[in-house]
């Protein structure tokens, strides 16, 4: 008797535990081996870029929360930087420091989530995720304390930040910053040398440095492939030029290296927060701007190093109170574009681990 096999199409998503939202993969599989892959995005499209053309510059800030909902602060910051560039609004020094503190807190929260879900995708039964959520929870408490919201913070304003942190904020962040290194070590010990995690993520989803640059990758994906590129150092914004921190870089460009880079970035962020807290000047936390800001006609591109990579906001003004064009360079979408190269030829579990290591947020991909 002869048996014939033929490839079949497996639909992963839009509802699937590992697609982290409504993202769909159409995978052509031969048994467990992936022959071809097709990414279908757009299930969470909310037309933000078009909607933004109807709202004033300040009213657009909440959209940046809801694009990358796991890194709302970074989105706020990038957009505000772009509009400040466009309109020439000055930012007080205290606001710049507060922006750095909150952006780095957000990076820790986002990387904790990314690493936790990555280990979950590798098959752990929620435990590492829960440990990483412990830190994230305290950070979200700090956000709530300061701005009133935990996830979609809407905290940054054009010309500063919305609120000065309340008095109880400072002891809370001091204790968080002093706890964090130990807390990170706690789960890093469990995971870094874990044979199963090594076996699952070493050599999986490898991207060479050339490919990473040619694919326009950024953030931990790019640094995991060995390219020391970080906007906070390459093109410092806010007060990052006064901070002393290192860029973590991977050697193999695989999923494990991205995990390591994220883990190390959390440590570096702790360092930055420490310095920013020490150097936090007194003074106003925002400049007053007109209710309906009307920048001169022109364009600006503000970019920040978000947790997922270069988060850029391109804003064009025609002199009106609403942007003529508003565009987001979403790092998730661009980082995801190399998933096909990572996954084709490997098996389904490897593809899931590779997808987990990209750390996508579907809200940002679809906007």
């Amino acid at each position, binding site marked *: 008797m002869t048996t014939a096999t033929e490839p079949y199409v497996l639909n992963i998503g839009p509802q699937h535990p590992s697609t982290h939202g409504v993202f769909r993969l159409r995978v052509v599989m031969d048994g467990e081996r992936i022959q071809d892959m097709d990414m279908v995005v757009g299930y969470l499209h909310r037309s933000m870029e078009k909607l933004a053309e109807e709202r004033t510059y300040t009213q657009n800030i909440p959209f940046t929360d809801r694009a990358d909902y796991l890194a709302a602060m970074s989105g706020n910051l990038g957009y505000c930087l772009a509009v400040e560039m466009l309109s020439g609004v000055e930012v007080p020094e205290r606001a710049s420091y507060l922006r750095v503190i909150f952006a780095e807190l957000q990076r820790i929260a986002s990387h904790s989530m990314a690493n936790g879900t990555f280990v979950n995708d590798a098959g752990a039964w929620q435990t590492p995720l829960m440990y990483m959520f412990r830190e994230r929870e305290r950070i979200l408490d700090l956000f709530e304390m300061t701005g009133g919201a935990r996830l979609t913070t809407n905290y940054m304003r054009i010309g500063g930040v919305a609120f000065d942190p309340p008095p109880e904020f400072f002891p809370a962040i001091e204790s968080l910053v002093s706890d964090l290194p130990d807390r990170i070590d706690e789960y890093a010990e469990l995971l*870094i040398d*874990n044979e199963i995690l090594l076996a699952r993520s070493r050599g999986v989803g490898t991207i060479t440095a050339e490919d990473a640059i040619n694919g326009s990758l950024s953030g931990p994906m790019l640094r995991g492939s060995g*390219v*020391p590129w970080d906007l906070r150092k*390459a093109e410092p914004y806010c007060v990052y030029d006064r901070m002393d921190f290192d860029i973590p870089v991977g*050697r193999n460009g695989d999923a494990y290296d991205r995990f390591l880079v994220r883990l190390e970035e959390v440590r570096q962020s702790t360092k930055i927060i420490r310095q920013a807290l020490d150097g936090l000047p007194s003074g106003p936390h925002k400049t007053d701007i007109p209710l309906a800001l009307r920048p001169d006609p022109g364009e600006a591109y503000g970019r920040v190093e978000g947790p997922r990579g270069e988060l850029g906001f391109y804003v064009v003004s025609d002199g009106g109170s609403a942007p003529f064009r508003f565009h987001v360079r979403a790092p998730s979408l661009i980082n995801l574009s190399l998933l096909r190269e990572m996954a084709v030829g490997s098996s389904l579990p490897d593809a899931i681990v590779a997808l987990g290591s990209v750390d996508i947020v579907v809200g940002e991909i679809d906007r």
Partner: protein
Amino acid sequence: MSSTLRQGRRRPATRVPPGLMIVGAVFALGFLAANAAIGYVVIDGRLDGQWYDIRDLGFAVQELKAQLDAINDDQPGFLDDIVGQHWMSYAVGALLGAIGILSFIGGALLVLIWVERRLIGRMQIRRGPNRVGPYGLLQPVADAVKLIQKEVLTPDGADRILFLLPPAIIFVPMMTAWGPVPWAPNMAYLDINVGVLYLIAVSSLTTLAVFLAGWSSNNHYALLGSMRTVAMMISYEIPLSIALLSVVLITGSMQLSEIVQWQADHNLWLIALLPIAMVTYFFSSTAELNRTPNDIAEAESEIVAGFHTEYSGMKFGLFYAVELGNALLVATLVATFFLGGWSLFGLEEWIPGYLILFAKLSAAYFVLVWLRGTLPRFRLDQLMRFAWQYLIPLSLFNLLIVAIEASLLARWDAPGLVTLGLFTVVNWGAAYILFRDWARRIGYQPDAGGPRRAELTQQVGGIEAAHRMGTAT
């Protein structure tokens, strides 16, 4: 402050009144005291088969069966010719045992679901279920009620009959495998002399139901899950059986009660004598159980729920119950084969054997939960390679060593302390060398694959910087 606000909304957990706990403790201690009193005051320490000797519930059943046989003998009926002379005791004994096992599994499942979720909760720095009933103890009941209420769907294009069968079929091997487990010296439902063989045969039937479920669902995820299950179960049956074979060799019996009796007689648990077999058996069992780190058949992050993706409501509930029941069974068998079953260095005369076994199986079950709460998952090919390249050669080595020892044991007329002590030392040495060196031999290098820490740099740049640092791949 914000966190106090959130705590204010939180409903306080229900607490068990301390009086109830005291009453419970008094009952438990009273039960143990009654045991000791009956054992030592009434029948002078020996397990001599009196029906009121609650240290071994088998005696009461035997007494009942004797009474029934007497009735059969007094009043011969027409059934005697058809069924057999002592049909009444056969029927009642079988029924009693079945009810006993069923109620034990049912009760233990309800408790252990709660225990597992609480333990995993503790491991994951959260509380676990604590809302339904005292300490959340009624959570499994609430879950079962919820599952019964839910709609049972049959997907379009599924093979309706084959789709209906697996939840029922899969229950059978799980239930029947409990038969030969000895709960106390005289307390085994099905004390057959080929118990080990029976267990291996019955427990591998699960594969059939799993494959049926995956095949009939008409779902790619389910099919992938069932294919993985079949591949894995076929592989892991081999080291599992070889591990049990070494137990059979050293104890000279396939009867589970004899295996436990051997451990009781020699005051030596087989975990001490056969460490390799113990580890091999335990790991192979977790592979058959579909539990992390080997839950590739229902790998949530990859194939959603594997073979039971399409099952909903109580059909899913049955799969879930069987999965836990099998975990419980494995824990019981580990306790029976390797942790001395009902024996506890003579203390079994004071404490009922079934309680000792329950304590031991709880310990083994805790290890299962612990593994689940800690480890990520292997990939299918890694798991298969682990079975074929690592576990099977190791268990064969172990079988060789144990075979030599068993034949020495039969010929060498030395006191047990000398022979078994020597063998224990030899086997632990062999375990240490084999576990470490065999992994190296098949190509495992502990520190291979590059650094395990990201490199730190202050410089920024593109590909040139990467080449300069030597990190570009």
